[in-house]
């Protein structure tokens, strides 16, 4: 560890982890949407398989339990994944944390943001969701927050752009 020169900077936090209160989760509608997208087809497939197999092959209809079990597992896995999504606005950078099995924690300094993008597809709009994507000069930066409510996405976008302007740095 180097002794990074901490100048007389009162506002900026030094290397501290965000407190619990600083983290924000994402909207529950994201979980509902994903459950519909993943579990819906699985349940449907199970039901169709059960009906068809029961009529034709008797006990083989039990195979329909496989998609149902998958749906049940996905139900809870999606909940865990949804709970893992969170972001924190620190004084100088934005932290985005997500993933259960494969965890990814990304820090993007405000001054490095080239572009803040809010997207919302038709399905997302129906669930009242928006996705915020940050672009830096590095193409490998994968910083996106899913499952924001449109007002929150707008607020975050405006705040990030504003902070980006004041803290802008060259390449």
């Amino acid at each position, binding site marked *: 560890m*180097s002794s*990074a020169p901490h100048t007389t900077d009162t506002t900026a936090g030094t290397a501290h*982890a965000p407190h619990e209160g600083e983290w924000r989760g994402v909207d529950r509608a994201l979980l509902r949407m994903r459950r519909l997208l993943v579990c819906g087809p699985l349940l449907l497939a199970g039901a169709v398989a059960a009906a068809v197999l029961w009529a034709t092959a008797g006990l083989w209809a039990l195979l329909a339990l496989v998609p149902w079990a998958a749906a049940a597992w996905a139900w809870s896995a999606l909940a865990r994944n949804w709970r893992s999504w969170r972001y924190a606005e620190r004084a100088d950078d934005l932290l985005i944390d997500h993933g259960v099995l494969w965890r990814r924690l990304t820090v993007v300094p405000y*001054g490095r943001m080239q572009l803040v993008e809010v997207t919302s597809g038709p399905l997302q709009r129906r669930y009242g969701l928006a996705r915020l994507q940050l672009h830096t*000069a590095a193409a*490998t930066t*994968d910083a996106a927050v899913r499952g924001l409510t449109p007002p929150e996405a707008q607020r975050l976008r405006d705040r990030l752009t504003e902070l980006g302007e004041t803290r802008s740095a060259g*390449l």
Partner: protein
Amino acid sequence: MTDVRDSRTPQPVSPAGPVRRAVVRLLPTRPEGTPLHPVTPWRRAWAPIAALAVTGLHNAEQARRWVTELSLGWLASGLLVVVPAAAVYGFLSWWCTSYLVTETELRIRTGLLFRRTAHLRLDRIQAVDVHRPLLGRTVGVAGLTLDLVGTDSKDQLAYLGEDEAVALRAELLALAAGMAPQTARHAGEAPAARLLRVRPRTQLAAAALRGSFWVAVLGSLVAPGVLYAVTGSVFALLALLVPALSLAGRTTFGRLVTEYDWTVDDSPDGLRIDHGLLGREHATVPPGRVQAVRVREPLLWRRLGWVRVELEVAGMGKQEGGTLLPVADRAAAAEVLARVLPGVDLSAAAAAAARGPRRARLGAPFLWRAFAHGTTDAVFVARSGLLERRTVLVPHAKVQSVRLRQGPWHRSLSLASVAVDNGAGGTAHARLRDADEAHALLLAQADRSRTGRRTARAERWLT
């Protein structure tokens, strides 16, 4: 248009001859700016000729029959159509191409049917390279390649007279450095001091000590040998040996030819790199634009203490454009590196790198020894590679984002990896660190990058 350089804008056509006026009226309007060197249309002329010659050589017998069968009349009429058409097209495309330097931009206009105007912002210029291909050297022309931030494709300005190219390059760099336009035009080439020259002998030795060379040579000897032992056919042996050896030769000697006589000069507008045996390449690395440095040490070089240094500069190619030193000993490399990244000490950075916890060997038995990471006041250091050791140095001020990644087996061993992205699209990975250390590193790195940026030097280094 007051900021346009008047001396080089084309003179309005004098009403000398009515014929000339009529011709000029027929031509499409000439875009404002300076035309390129008149030799330019010919630069693509050799390609179809060469292609014809090569196909002719390949099927010599057929080509001979063709030519004899073609009557002279057909040949002449063909030439009568093709040659003037090509000449007219070449002339028109040259006519419609021009460039213009304003206070803030370099404008390049091209295109006969589809007009294209490229406005290159001068303060976004990463580097201006002069390239002199072999044929161009004989005619006395050179081309300019311009690297801009955030563009993948490089804009070319080819061809210009050699002197003009050098003067334009100096002017563009002076403008990019923030010099006033009036003085920039007469800035001329900034004085340079020789930093380093790689001796051909060193270069040969280094090429011979590269693992890839031996793999290529052994591969091209062993595989045909086995084939010969199995089949006993000399023809099969040659059929495999010749292409294999030529491939091995091309990879090794191709690199040797392009990197021959590598010189590095220090000048106020950056480090100047000249290299090449046949076509001389000239590149300038402006200070403060280097995003990351890669130090490569092939296995056989390590005992000699030789290193290869590559740069990641935004907009520059990752391979050829990024080489700072093809081969040099550590001390010399450190000295040159200190010019590129002021305040960076190569040996201190190498010493700072430390291995992760031993338990990482459960996941990556041998590889874990190769991974090392450390930080100094100036750079983030990450090392990897068992045979060829690669050390990446990223200045704290150039970090674009920091990422922590933890997969399932990482978690079970309580390990994590930290990736640092730089503006040139590269990523430095500190792999297999202790999870708690990685968390602290992530936050500390974000913090260091912030303070590093504050003290970083300005983009326009002359203002």
